[in-house]
């Protein structure tokens, strides 16, 4: 009995430090975000209760809709290429006879582990309109003088390319893990039946990989939804708000215009979307566990 009591005591002792940190610095701010979103507040004067005014104003502000639209475009532009290229890279590195897989996996993974801020500075140089490497390569194909980061038609595309580049290695590793669960014997059996590589991909790889693919898509969706650093370093939401994604809109309202109430309403809206996404993802990862 004494031993039991001691175990309970030790149990609480072990979890309390982490619990205190997470409650104070994550749950408390989360609840407070709801509270602040119902007020008008600039941190200088006291909070003023405004009810749902911030939310109403949010849905009436064209800039908010613009940020949602830009975020949607960014997600649409990043998810498919980064998942497809990630799968392609994984399949390359899953080839049985290929030597040096470990080295290539490491090389493909480098953008994932480097900081987005430094990468964004480097990409700023690559996108430089007159002396940048990107425009130099494009000049071989007769395309000249694209002002990547200062032309509203191209700035978001420039960020999408960076986003895909940064993330393909991560998706590749998830796909590699998925590919390794597919038994080689399936392919061997198909070969005996005279299946072409495309048949094998379509009828074995894709169906058996579908739980992984769904998981990768959702993870990529969440990551794209949260894009911030590249925007902050490379375009600051411009030109003409063409890259003002929702996180940057939130950041500017909070820390540039000090509209803390309004910014909190945006944060609550983002959180609601995140919860939906995460629940979908949990559903899928549960399925994934049952599958294998």
């Amino acid at each position, binding site marked *: 009995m004494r031993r039991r009591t001691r175990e309970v005591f030790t149990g609480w002792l072990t979890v309390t*430090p982490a*619990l205190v940190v997470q409650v104070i610095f994550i749950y408390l701010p989360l609840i407070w975000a709801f509270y602040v979103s119902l007020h008008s507040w600039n941190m200088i004067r006291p909070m003023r209760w405004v009810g749902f005014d911030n939310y109403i104003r949010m849905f009436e502000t064209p800039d908010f809709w613009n940020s949602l639209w830009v975020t949607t475009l960014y997600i649409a532009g990043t998810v498919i290429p980064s998942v497809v290229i990630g799968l392609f890279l994984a399949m390359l590195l899953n080839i049985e006879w290929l030597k040096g897989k470990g080295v290539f996996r490491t090389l493909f993974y480098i953008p994932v582990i480097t*900081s987005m801020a430094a990468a964004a500075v480097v990409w700023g140089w*690559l996108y430089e309109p*007159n002396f940048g490497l990107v425009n130099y390569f494009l000049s071989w194909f007769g395309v000249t003088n694209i002002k990547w980061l200062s032309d509203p038609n191209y700035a978001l595309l420039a960020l999408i390319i960076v986003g895909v580049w940064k993330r393909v290695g991560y998706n590749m590793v998830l796909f590699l893990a998925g590919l390794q669960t597919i038994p080689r014997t399936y392919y061997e059996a198909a070969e005996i039946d005279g299946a072409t590589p495309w048949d094998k991909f379509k009828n074995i790889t894709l169906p058996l990989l579908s739980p992984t693919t769904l998981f990768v898509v959702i993870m990529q969706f969440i990551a794209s939804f949260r894009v911030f650093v590249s925007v902050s370093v490379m375009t600051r939401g411009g030109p003409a708000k063409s890259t003002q994604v929702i996180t940057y809109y939130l950041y500017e309202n909070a820390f540039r215009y000090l509209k803390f109430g309004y910014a909190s309403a945006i944060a609550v809206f983002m959180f609601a979307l995140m919860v939906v996404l995460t629940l979908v993802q949990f559903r899928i990862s549960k399925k994934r566990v049952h599958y294998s």
Partner: protein
Amino acid sequence: MRRKPHIIVRAIVILVVLFVAIMINLPFIWMLVTSFKTEDAAFAIPPSFLPTIFDLRNFVKAFQLIPLSQYVVNTLFVALSVTFLQLVFNSLAAFGLARLRFRGSNVIFMILIGTLMVPPEVTMVPLYVIVKQFGFINKYEALIIPFMSSAFGIFLLRQFFMGIPRELEEAAIIDGASRMKIFFTIILPLSKPALYTMALYTFLAHWNEYMWPLIVINDAKKQMIQVGISQFVSGWETQWTLRMAASTTAVLPIIVFFFFVQRQFVEGISISGLKE
């Protein structure tokens, strides 16, 4: 044993793999080359992939123009502190959740893991206010204290701890060892790979952190490296050779380090599938 495909097919595949490896790393290659060029050479058309200077001139200038060495020291201090604290906080919580039976442990697990659903962007405004109340603005406490524990770390360690066979502790229990003694003498020594993986992730995440220091640190001397190298200072915008030298300082040590520890990383994400 399966037959290898024709030599031409193999050659094409190897060329594709090599090409992809170079293209993916081209930005970093270009960064490194530019940081060893004179201003004129950097703006030459057609661009050359050969460096023109063979000393650290650009690095020296960059270190003079912005307090780069200060940034490195600051960021090392913060990232190492967070890593150390997370090792303590996360392994303790993971031990309790994986190895001890007490009422409410399931609920606590849900509470601790539930924070994975809360992206930092959502809480940044109120967290800023809380950190300000504590008087942490412009102090390293703002970058360390809120991040002493993480859902990802707890989850990773808990999974690992659960896999350690119970029999290993039974002898110690018969000898009358306390739970904490079992934690220190049996669980922790056996969990070195998991602790190592978690420490690497945490260090890297905080070395690379940009958004939060951008918000809570305004004092240039106390800034973290990622914000420091990406913010503009006068005349700095177009000095690409210097900016590339600064970026190299922030990136190259991490890439070199990664080559030594890449297995832990890649295996870590395929196990958990959780972390970037």
